[in-house]
């Protein structure tokens, strides 16, 4: 992952601007498509913006370039956010985002690689991304390749045993190429994480499984950049960025509201959401 590709000027202003564009796309895409999971995208928008804006070494002109860092979105239901980031990074025209959720479109609600340059892995069923990322990290490990593998998960998907299988393996084999970013917004599909299936002490569990863990404010770009610059957190161990986030971040009436896991912003709601995001811009 090495040096951020924006090597000059104010990196956070670049990634923050990217995050705002991702959020703007997210509310418009989910409104136009009458689709769910807008709050899940808003929750991780800063994480995705920092990764695609400054951390991941990827080349839009060569999406399959062998030396690229691999990124997997394991919380596939937030696919709109990755489609938006890839479009903004130039993997395909931004206008194609208008196809999201439309009949005959390849831009499915859950992220899919078919026909979408830059998507490494199709997901949607939770608990798949970490295992595949571990396989990719193992491949890099065997070839002593310098690239990294980053997988972004939700918090609720750590209910899945498959994630813990994967973390056991990654730690046993010392796969330091692997970085798991957890979007820890503490809200799942129907209720809070605490009320559904408690993960706390989450950090302690992850560390007990052998990960090097860095806790960070998942909306603070400077803090996120600093965290990624410190990799690996522990020598010879897989990394976890435990990012504390707010579900629905950036649109006040969606923040921490479980209903926005499924609800699509329509009419006045869309107008209000767009206004809230624009009010958040530094030049507003």
């Amino acid at each position, binding site marked *: 992952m090495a040096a951020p590709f924006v090597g000059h000027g104010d990196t956070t202003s670049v990634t923050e601007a990217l995050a705002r564009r991702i959020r703007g796309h997210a509310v418009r895409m989910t409104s136009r498509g009458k689709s769910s999971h807008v709050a899940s995208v808003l929750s991780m928008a800063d994480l995705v913006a920092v990764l695609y804006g400054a951390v991941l070494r990827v080349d839009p002109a060569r999406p399959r370039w062998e030396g690229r860092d691999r990124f997997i979105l394991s919380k596939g239901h937030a696919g709109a956010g990755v489609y938006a980031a890839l479009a903004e990074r130039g993997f395909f025209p931004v206008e194609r985002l208008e196809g999201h959720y439309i009949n005959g479109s390849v831009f499915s609600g859950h992220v899919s690689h078919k026909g979408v340059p830059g998507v490494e892995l199709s997901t949607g069923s939770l608990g*798949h991304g970490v295992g*595949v990322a571990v396989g990719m990290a*193992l491949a890099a490990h065997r070839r002593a390749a310098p690239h990294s593998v980053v997988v972004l998960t939700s918090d609720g998907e750590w209910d899945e045993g*498959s994630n813990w*299988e994967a973390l*056991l393996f990654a730690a046993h084999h010392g796969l330091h190429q692997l970085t798991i970013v957890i979007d820890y917004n503490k809200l799942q599909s129907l209720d809070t994480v605490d009320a559904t299936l408690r993960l706390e002490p989450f950090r302690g569990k992850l560390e007990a499984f052998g990960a090097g863990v860095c806790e960070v404010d998942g909306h603070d770009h400077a803090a996120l950049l600093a965290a990624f610059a410190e990799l690996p957190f522990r020598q010879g161990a897989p990394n976890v960025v435990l990012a504390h986030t707010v579900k629905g971040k950036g649109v006040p009436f969606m923040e921490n509201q479980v209903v926005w896991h499924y609800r699509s912003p329509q009419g006045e709601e869309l107008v209000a959401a767009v206004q809230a995001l624009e009010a958040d811009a530094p030049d507003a």
Partner: protein
Amino acid sequence: MRDDFVRALCELAVDDPRVMLLTGDLGFGVLDEFAARFPAQYVNAGVAEQNMTAMAAGLALDGHKVYTYSIANFATLRCLEQIRNDVCYHDADVTIVSVGGGFSYGQLGMSHFATEDLAILRALPGMRVVAPTEPWEAYAATRALHASSGPAYLRIDRAGAALTTPNPGFQLGRARWIREGKDATIIAIGGILSEAVAAAERLATLGVDTAVVAVHCLKPLDMEMVARVVASTPVVVTLEEHTTVGGLGGALLEACEALRTFPQVMRRVGLRDCYPTVVGDQAYLRGAYGLDAAAVVKQTIEGVRAMRQAGNE
């Protein structure tokens, strides 16, 4: 058959560093040679089949040819969604190897009976389903699968009777005629082919001239074989150490529908829709659940009688 698979894989690994063998903590005494000779190409993933299969997809997407190995249903049903989403949807070059087809582990109980795997794996788009009928064919199929790419399921019996000598003309997907016959054809998949051959020999003494066809590839099914069988004998009997739901018999009828041609009389011999509750060795369970040579003889004779009665009416 296990050893034939491992022998082929060892030969392939010598020249192909892309070959990776992942085991779900099984293969005691079977995988030792591979593990010792190719330590960098061997990983014990632990008792964690979901992760083993997801990792296999990740390795394959990064240029490896990956084999996952476990017993019976562990390599397939336990991690079916990883096979579907991670392997098949991404057209990943992963061969899932399941040892212990049917009642191979007959004394171990229902958990270790692989009797729905063919039907379930066959339903996955992009998945090729291969179940060798003899030891040499397990070796040949392993080599042929390596020469191709994409998702595959290789179901091998723990042991397996050698019935024929290795056929240099072996082609992945092409069925083989073990013997010709004009009254009936028995089509068998996997190691239970030996029961079909025994049945045909007994039927010959009873005046029923019976062909035997060995099918090692359920998907894609050899359509030329289907057309030839239907055209050549009025009675067709399928035999599989597997449920009759969706396996060889079902696939054959689907193929007939696609070809718009059907046998005059068709009998599907396999495990009726149930979970076996008793244990025993493979031969015992084949007899107990009506899939041994005696059962095939009975079904074939009934089929021939039904056909002759229909002809007399």
